[in-house]
């Protein structure tokens, strides 16, 4: 298929990008890897008079860690995240999610910023960002602001960005010792989006009770969802079978899946319940490996 016409800009500096954005306002669309946007343009599901390709903006494709945060530039490709030794070693949940996104060729171009900003409830990174309690640094002409991951995507394909703003960085609090997490994605067959997926990150007190829990859900609601009640339920508790079962039930109660091509809402709830149990158990196991 073939996109409608648009004007194209490829700024190399953030200031230029922001200038263009403020000039064209709602008529402009930011593109990074283009792996979600270009298919929409091709099918003419969406069209924009101006496309601002920020993939050439310098300095936004780095993965760094300081004392407080793991910082990932919005233009970092999914495959660089999947291949990063640092992330593999210390942020297994993110490593796991990145390696399961679409296919290797799409991962080579798709970016973490795009995966989050696009707002597709089936995209995987938002749930992981929620579970990791990430801060999303947003940049605009007036400066930077921080948005918590769970409030970034506001509805299907809609996010918190105001006209003129761009997602700049993903900042993930450094994982303390005694913490662990995982991403479990249930698919019908290898090439599909998920039927349901869950990101769980736990950190534990010395006595192995849960100090903090982060739980994000993919594909089971109109937007990526934080299972906040389940998080609160787990906090302070020791992990055992009945706690896990109860937590999974709460997770399911926080979902709102629709019946579609991938299965009925009932089926999706069932799948979510099972992977929730599995994910909490696995996260706990990982958090207790010292």
């Amino acid at each position, binding site marked *: *298929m*073939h*996109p*409608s*016409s*648009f*004007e*194209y800009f*490829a700024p190399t500096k953030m200031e230029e990008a922001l200038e263009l954005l403020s000039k064209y306002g709602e008529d402009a669309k930011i593109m990074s890897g*283009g*792996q979600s946007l*270009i*298919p929409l*343009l*091709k*099918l003419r599901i969406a069209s924009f008079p101006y*496309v601002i*390709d920020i*993939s*050439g903006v310098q300095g936004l494709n780095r993965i760094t860690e300081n004392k407080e945060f793991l910082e990932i530039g919005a233009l970092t490709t999914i*495959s660089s995240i999947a291949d990063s030794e640092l992330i593999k070693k210390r942020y297994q949940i993110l490593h796991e999610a990145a390696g399961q996104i*679409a*296919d*290797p*060729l*799409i991962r*080579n*171009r798709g970016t973490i910023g795009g995966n989050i900003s696009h707002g597709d409830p089936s995209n995987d990174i938002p749930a992981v960002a929620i579970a990791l309690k990430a801060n999303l640094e947003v940049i605009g002409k007036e400066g930077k602001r921080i948005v918590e991951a769970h409030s970034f995507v506001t509805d299907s394909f809609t996010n918190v960005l105001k006209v003129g703003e761009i997602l700049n960085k993903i900042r993930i609090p450094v994982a303390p010792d005694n913490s662990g997490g995982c991403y479990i994605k249930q698919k019908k067959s*290898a*090439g599909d989006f998920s039927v349901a997926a869950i990101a769980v990150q736990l950190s534990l007190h010395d006595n192995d009770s849960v100090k903090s829990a982060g739980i994000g859900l993919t594909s089971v609601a109109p937007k990526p969802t934080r299972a906040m009640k389940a998080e609160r339920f787990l906090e302070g508790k020791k992990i055992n079978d009945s706690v896990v079962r109860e937590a999974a039930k709460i997770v399911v109660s926080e979902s709102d899946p629709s019946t579609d091509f991938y299965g009925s809402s009932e089926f999706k709830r069932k799948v979510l319940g099972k992977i929730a149990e599995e994910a909490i158990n696995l996260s706990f196991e990982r958090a207790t490996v010292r």
Partner: protein
Amino acid sequence: MSTIKIRTKVNGKDVEAEVEPRTLLVHFLREELNLTGTHVGCDTSNCGACTVLIDGQAVKSCTVLAAQANGKEITTIEGLSRNGELHPLQKAFLEKHGLQCGYCTSGMILTSFWLLKKNKDPSEEEIRKNLSGNLCRCTGYQSIVESVKYAAQLMNEKEVEREMAVR
């Protein structure tokens, strides 16, 4: 209708062109440069028949704007053989029958090329996983997996030969 100017290197040759911003890379390669070995099989970034290398990375050229190739190096299937000699992957796909209708072949070979650069001796599972962005409807993939394995062997043998020659 506005156009923009792009400069790229395609299969080692410098290319300068005026393109409409909406032109997809695959159409630029096929229509403007007559590199018709890169194919279009779907509209939804699933099939990988359009796979090319951009700066060495395997990507789907139906999901890249020609404009985005500005300043980059592109390799298509036509750029794989050297002085008329087939690349080991091309030889292996022929010898092990890693193709039937031929339509997915360019994409399969280029993804495998990228894979073998990262991993000189991939397991069967790694090959199958890395080909998950490339669809074949004819072969059932078994002969493709065998072709990639065989190519890895040919390439490793070649490398050993080269090392021996240097010594």
